[in-house]
């Protein structure tokens, strides 16, 4: 009898303890200070290790090539950690993962609404060929309670294709056909003389794909790739493109539609024209 009363009481105490001015988690404070990349801990130690190594690899690439210099990646448990200090969350989808609790979903939805972004990775390269963002049953189960806007395959003129590098596709360890993001509004029109539609001014809260990006980015302590990609020169080229996708993705998370701004269009236009001539 007492137990039935204790559980809500404990919850109440826990909630009041949270709202009090206790010290925020130092890992998260560091993440906020250093723009650290974060991944969701799934409980599958192999996947988690790959996620951490992947984000570390991506952080190194970012530090080497751009002004973004993220700190060490951190693993996040959506059940406990305050997501409001994060900007980006990598979420590998595993079959074994237990679905988050309702409180965690409240936190995740707030994270998505307030400008955070989650990259869902089914890590299967869409081998089943279902082609949709909900092709994987596990992802479907995981994402159903989230406030996700209508999705569409990332179009060729999405800002993700030019937030740092110019990209045509978004390979990871696999070269899946499509990745999905928030669908452009129906009234998005191509401005005159501009090859890009002026797409949603907000930033898509989720990117969904299955190219096992973390594995492609992953490096060990010596800075060497942990997983093989393709074969020979082609494989290394694909790994480079994977890094470029990672850089573009983080730039998209941090700068939003910066590259859509008109001010950049004339110069980009010029460059694209040159590229067409080269081909």
């Amino acid at each position, binding site marked *: 009898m007492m137990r039935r009363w204790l559980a809500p009481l404990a919850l109440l105490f826990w909630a009041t303890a949270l709202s009090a001015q206790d010290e*925020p988690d130092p890992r998260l*404070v560091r993440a906020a*200070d250093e723009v650290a990349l974060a991944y969701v801990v799934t409980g599958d130690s192999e996947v988690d290790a790959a996620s951490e190594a992947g984000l570390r690899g991506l952080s190194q690439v970012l530090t080497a090539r751009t*002004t*973004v210099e993220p700190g060490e990646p951190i693993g996040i448990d959506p059940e406990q950690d305050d997501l409001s*200090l994060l900007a980006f969350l990598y979420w590998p989808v595993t079959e074994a993962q237990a679905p988050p609790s309702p409180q965690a979903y409240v936190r995740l939805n707030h994270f998505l609404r*307030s400008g955070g972004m989650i990259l869902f990775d089914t890590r299967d390269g869409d081998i089943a060929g279902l082609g949709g963002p909900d092709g994987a049953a596990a992802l479907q189960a995981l994402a159903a309670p989230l406030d996700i806007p209508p999705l569409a395959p990332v179009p060729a003129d999405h800002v993700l294709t030019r937030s740092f590098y110019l990209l045509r596709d978004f390979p990871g360890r696999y070269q899946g056909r499509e990745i999905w993001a928030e669908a452009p509004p129906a009234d998005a029109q191509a401005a005159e003389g501009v090859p890009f539609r002026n797409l949603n001014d907000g930033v898509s809260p989720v990117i969904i794909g299955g190219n096992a990006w973390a594995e492609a980015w992953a490096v060990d302590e010596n800075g060497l790739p942990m997983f093989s990609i393709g074969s020979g020169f082609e494989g290394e080229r694909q790994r480079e493109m994977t890094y470029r996708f990672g850089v573009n993705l983080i730039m998209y998370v*941090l*700068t939003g539609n910066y590259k859509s701004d008109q001010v950049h269009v004339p*110069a980009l236009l010029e460059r694209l024209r040159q590229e067409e001539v080269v081909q």
Partner: protein
Amino acid sequence: MSGLTFDPLLSWPLVGALALLGVLVALWSLWRGLRGWAWRGIAGLAAAAALAGPALESGIRHKLSDIVILLDDRSASQSLPGRAEQTDAAVEELTRQLSALPDTEIRRVTVADDPDGTQIGTALTRALAAEPQARVAGVIAVTDGLAHDAPMLPASAPAPVHVLLTGQAQDWDRRLVIEEAPAYGLIGKPVTIRLRVEDQGAVPAQVAQTPARLRILLDGEEMRSLDLPPGVTLDLPVVPEHAGQNVVSIGFDAPQAEVPELTDRNNSAAVQIQGVRDRLRVLLVSGAPHAGERTWRNLLKSDANVDLIHFTILRPPDKMDAVPVDEMSLIAFPTQELFMERIRDFDLIIFDRYRVRGILLPQYYDNIRRYVEEGGAILVSAGPEMSTVESLNLSPLGAILPARPTGRVYAEPFLPRLTEDGERHPVTAGLPGAPAEDAASHWGRWLRMSQVIPDPDAQVVLSGARDEPLLLFSRVGEGRVAMLTSDQVWLWGRGFEGGGPQLELLRRIAHWSMQEPELEEEALLADVSGELAVTITRRTMKVTAGPVRITRPDGQTEEVALTEAGPGRFTARWTAPGPGLYRLEEGDIGRVLALGPAAPREFEQTVASGAVLGPLAEATQGAVLRLSEGMPGLRTVREGRPAHGQGVGGPWIAITPREAASVSGMTHRPLLPGWAWLALIAGLAVAGWLAEGRGRLRST
């Protein structure tokens, strides 16, 4: 209303037949040579006439009195010197003369002052409609003739309309006419007010030659003065200097002459131009992509009045990769163009976590400093890089920044708090959810800030960790600089520990930097509610605010005490005694307030004139006469006759008695009584018989 009617005793054919019979008998008698034939015929006809029943019918009539409408104009223009007395005297004299006339009633109509001017037409139309047309014998209007509702004047009237004009023959006036004035203008862009000076009436020769010396004041500050001859149209360029009401007052002194002009109330005008800001151009320079960058973008891109030019340093010059440039989406930062050539196009430059890393040349920083000193604005949102050797403070820009970093970074959670200045400062005052002692919930905390030493003249409005300055403002030359010593305002937007009003705070900081008048620390505001009720608000960073000194249009001053309505806010309610241009002053801050119509309509035209009422008078054969030439006599004439003229004793005007009457019943009287008819017919018959009988005697 009287006449002969017939009321036949038999039907008309029988009466006719009887008359015919009488005529036939007479003819037969003539043929037979009877000498009484005429008498017989007349007797027959008389009998027929008696049967036809002739009767006299007449109405019962009552004579009705005549109505004279006596209209006196008491509008403001009639209050000019002498006119009221003239009007009183004329009305009194007319009343006396009209009451002396038999069967004449006077209907008094008084045209009072109206915000829309003198409404004589309306009053006249209404008065005529209220009276029976047939009884109106005349209309006499005592006025200066300056009606503002000419279209409402009746086209005609059933009786003469006389206009007796007040004023003197030597009346003259010089006035200012605003032909065209814009209601809105872009700040800093000239707008044109078209105006002229107009002379009216008998202008003295020495005045007609001299131009008017116009004094033009913008918000009470002397802008320029110039000479403008009467009749010449001037296009006056005016530059609205700030948002909100810009009051341009234009006026000239009354010209010196032996006979002064009628009034100086139309010698000045106040034109109110609503200053509107052009689209604001904001240059946002992010030193590196970071979690708070999208906060700035969300703020500035959602503001419809802001054109955002955004540059982020995506790759520093010292980092390279092997990727060919044509596979990159990077463009060179057009620093020369932005910071040298086009810097004055921007209203605000935001340095968002900007690190000095050799991208901007020292002369660019010098140029930015000049830009601020000349009225530009910069806002520095600094992360920990401010405490490093790459700090903006170590660039030439450092000289104008409101604080110097010590090199120390507080990496600890802290709650932003309003300082004492912050509670008064319009940027931070009233931010929702500000930490207060008794409030249960408050803003979320931030996690990192740099320690700075503020300049002595900088204002610290927010404090952070260990009460160190978090948000600082300073003024440099004509420009402004704002500095946020933490980059973590985005945590509020993310809802960390409940978050805070991050968009509102950043919006206010940005707009304060761009000198938005609503966010001025020292401001004297006047909200006009209703006609003349004014709420005066003094916003100040000082602890007290003295009374507001109000200078009335006539130069008198009064003082209105202010009561404290909140930190830095002092208010008072005040009602102006009348329309006009008021000057409000408190300390060294002042503003001009225009209440009511700038130049009252009543005083646009002041020289009495029959131009408006003349056509109506002419159409009704009435007269337009000047009272200054003597009070006209009053006569009565028949309808249709000229109703005015020049008599021996002077001009006269006339009313036309209408002889209207009402019919209250009818009388019906037989022409002759029955016995008289009998006697008449019998007499005629006897006469015929006698004539014939006497003739027979004579012939036999």
